[in-house]
């Protein structure tokens, strides 16, 4: 399993996998044979699988993006690029991203050592707790920090950075930690016997082996914080706005579509630069080393005990915003009560025109087509990538493009083209799940593709020799082996669809907001009742997305246990 192969969800591919025996035992001849044109038993042609995803992407990704680009290059768009406010926004976006990333990595590295190499009571619970924020919808993170920060902090750089650390700590801890757990501790022992001091061991052994994981985590966190939308929209203020928020403000509040499109251009260029740079660093990919799951050790030195203590405190800090959410959902004036929970669960108009209850049913309704489309298209795309004989790397990167494009850009593109695209989706609610499916599809691809790639092609030979024609072999061998990965990705897609905010904020119709949109609306308005309802609704959203993600993770654990 490639160490550079980064999964965005903390669960599936960051967990260590022991090389399976079937691929190891293939004889050298069989390996030469693979990829040969004269192989007679092949999976069905990639065209069968690739055509629908290509059409879907052309319609709902390439065409909208082209429209954004054209508008961005127009005269109005160019003038937005030369204005000072734009460059202030760019500077602030960079500043908060660099600060958030640095602090997340600095805090995350020692924490990942403590959580993956040291043995102490409650270690697993602590690891689970620190992982929770990453599966939270961004709006929930924003709402939670509203509850825990003093009001004077709202709209400041500090609030945004703290929320970003809270949100992204799991990326560093899970990605780096799972690699750290695999570094054979006997390398360090060998170095010690050769006279290396602890610092020398870190510099000459541990760091070279961890470097690729640390760089991968760093570039991922930078990408997330640079394109962060929901957190900044809710915690930021007039002077602390990022590119994503500014795109939204221009498009939705000012109806300045060319200006918004021009900022999308900037965003795309910046993301491309980060992706290329991180691709470069991935190539310095570390040393191949023997993978061996090392046992965790009881902390002995004083420094290690302090580290465990600090990690426990970190866990408490991570729990605080979540507790604050619970408190503000239950605190009515100066007494405790279920008033906000009742308000949320009542159907019928309450605060404005829509009730929270309706937003829950809207979200769940949208999730169904979003999951069907993202798992369907993503699954087909994974098969197409796995079965092409040439150019699969190109196809793979093409299909990952929506992930590199920010959700806000996707939303803006769909908004611009929904009225004048080849398919008229104006006024159709389907545009929302389509946007969510675009966001979720690359995750589906990343979950399904490794399973397909690990499938021994000789299983298809075996099926053919037992009389199965190509399609029957696909249905009886590939598909059942894929089904679990498809289940995992469906869980992830549910979680993404329910919590999606960036694209949805452009596409949701005023009369039927999804849960994250409704939470953001409630938080915009003053008053204890709105904050309390937002907190209660956030907790419902949190429970829904977290349980979908937990089901997915449980499925992927079983898979590792049985293979």
């Amino acid at each position, binding site marked *: 399993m490639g160490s550079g192969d980064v999964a965005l969800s903390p669960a599936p591919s960051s967990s260590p996998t022991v090389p399976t025996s079937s691929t190891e035992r293939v004889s050298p001849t069989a390996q030469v*044979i693979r990829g040969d044109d004269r192989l*007679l038993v092949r999976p069905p042609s990639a065209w069968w699988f690739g055509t629908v995803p290509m059409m879907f992407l052309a319609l709902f990704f390439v065409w909208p993006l082209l429209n954004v680009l054209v508008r961005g290059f127009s005269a109005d768009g160019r003038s937005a690029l030369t204005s000072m406010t734009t460059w202030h926004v760019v500077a602030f976006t960079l500043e908060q991203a660099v600060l958030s990333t640095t602090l997340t990595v600095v805090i995350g590295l020692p924490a990942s050592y403590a959580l993956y190499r040291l043995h102490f009571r409650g270690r697993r619970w602590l690891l689970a707790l620190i992982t929770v924020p990453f599966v939270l919808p961004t709006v929930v993170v924003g709402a939670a920090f509203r509850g825990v920060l003093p009001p004077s902090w709202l709209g400041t750089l500090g609030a945004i950075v703290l929320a970003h650390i809270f949100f992204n700590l799991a990326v560093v801890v899970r990605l780096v930690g799972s690699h750290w757990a695999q570094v054979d501790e006997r390398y360090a022992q060998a170095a010690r016997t050769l006279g290396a001091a602890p610092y020398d061991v870190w510099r000459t052994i541990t760091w070279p082996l961890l470097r690729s994981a640390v760089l991968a985590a760093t570039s991922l966190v930078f990408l997330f914080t640079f394109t962060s939308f929901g957190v900044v929209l809710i915690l930021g203020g007039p002077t602390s706005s990022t590119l994503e928020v500014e795109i939204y403000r221009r498009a939705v509040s000012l109806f300045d579509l060319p200006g918004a499109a021009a900022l999308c251009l900037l965003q795309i260029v910046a993301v491309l630069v980060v992706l290329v740079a991180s691709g470069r660093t991935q190539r310095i990919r570390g040393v191949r080393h023997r993978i061996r799951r090392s046992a965790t050790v009881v902390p002995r030195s004083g420094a290690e005990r302090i580290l465990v203590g600090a990690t426990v405190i970190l866990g408490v800090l991570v729990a605080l915003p979540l507790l604050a959410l619970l408190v503000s959902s239950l605190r009515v004036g100066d007494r405790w009560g279920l008033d906000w929970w009742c308000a949320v669960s009542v159907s019928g108009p309450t605060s404005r025109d829509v009730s929270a209850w309706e937003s829950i049913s809207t979200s769940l309704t949208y999730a169904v087509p979003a999951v069907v489309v993202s798992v369907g298209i993503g699954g087909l795309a994974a098969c197409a990538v796995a079965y092409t004989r040439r150019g699969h790397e190109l196809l793979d990167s093409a299909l990952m493009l929506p992930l590199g494009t920010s959700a806000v850009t996707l939303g803006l593109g769909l908004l611009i083209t929904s009225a004048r695209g080849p398919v008229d989706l104006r006024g159709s609610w389907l545009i929302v799940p389509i946007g969510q499916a675009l966001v979720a599809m690359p995750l589906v691809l990343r979950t399904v593709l490794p399973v397909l790639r690990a499938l021994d092609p000789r299983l298809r030979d075996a099926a053919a020799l*037992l*009389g199965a024609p190509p399609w029957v072999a696909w249905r009886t061998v590939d598909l059942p082996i894929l089904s679990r990965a498809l289940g995992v990705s469906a869980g992830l897609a549910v979680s993404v669809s329910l919590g999606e905010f960036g694209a949805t904020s452009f596409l949701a119709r005023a009369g039927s907001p999804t849960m994250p949109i409704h939470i953001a609306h409630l938080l915009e308005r003053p008053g204890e009742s709105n904050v309390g309802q937002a907190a209660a609704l956030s907790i419902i959203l949190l429970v829904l997305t977290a349980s979908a993600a937990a089901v997915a993770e449980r499925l992927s654990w079983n898979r590792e246990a049985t293979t």
Partner: protein
Amino acid sequence: MSGLDVTAISLRLGDVWVLREVTIAVGSGEIVALLGPSGAGKTSLLRVIAGLIEPDAGSVTWDGHDLRGEPAHRRRMGMVFQDALLFPHRDVAGNIGYGLEIGGERRSAIAARIEELLELVGLSGFQHRDVATLSGGQAGRVALARALAPHPRLLLLDEPFVALDRDLRDRLGAEVRELLKRLGVPALHVTHDPHEAALVADRAITLAPSGDGSSIVAT
């Protein structure tokens, strides 16, 4: 001629001639061992016969009928792979019954055939075992039963016992011979072990390494 005729097969992989003008025959009911060191092209020859890869030259015929263009799934040749290669998502019965399901047989007929085959290979009652829990010897027996289930006209055995220890290999070798003779299924048995070849086969053919062209030595 009846049975399998392989005539002047040549196969190049990249720049290497893996097989050069190889000619062998397997008569009906006959068990032939194909000997040779690793790299001699034994597995490749089996793959050519099974229709898994197209040779650069030469022909494969069955009862005088040319098999060129006949896809693997219609050749009715059973194959037992080196590492058994059982379907990981199906249990023992699911593996053995696979070819029968594809052939559209009735459920009850399939169950009966599975039971019969399991008894033949000495694994009665193993129907619902997860294939991941089988030992190497058991997996090999299931692979043999799976290949025999759809009544193949020829069985191709690709070093099926290579991962087993000596004792087990001898026992299984004798069992396989007895089984094939009882069922009257002709077989081509690839191995690099002359002792095993003598145990299983009626006669042996040696495939020399192909550096300067394969030569065939019949014994």
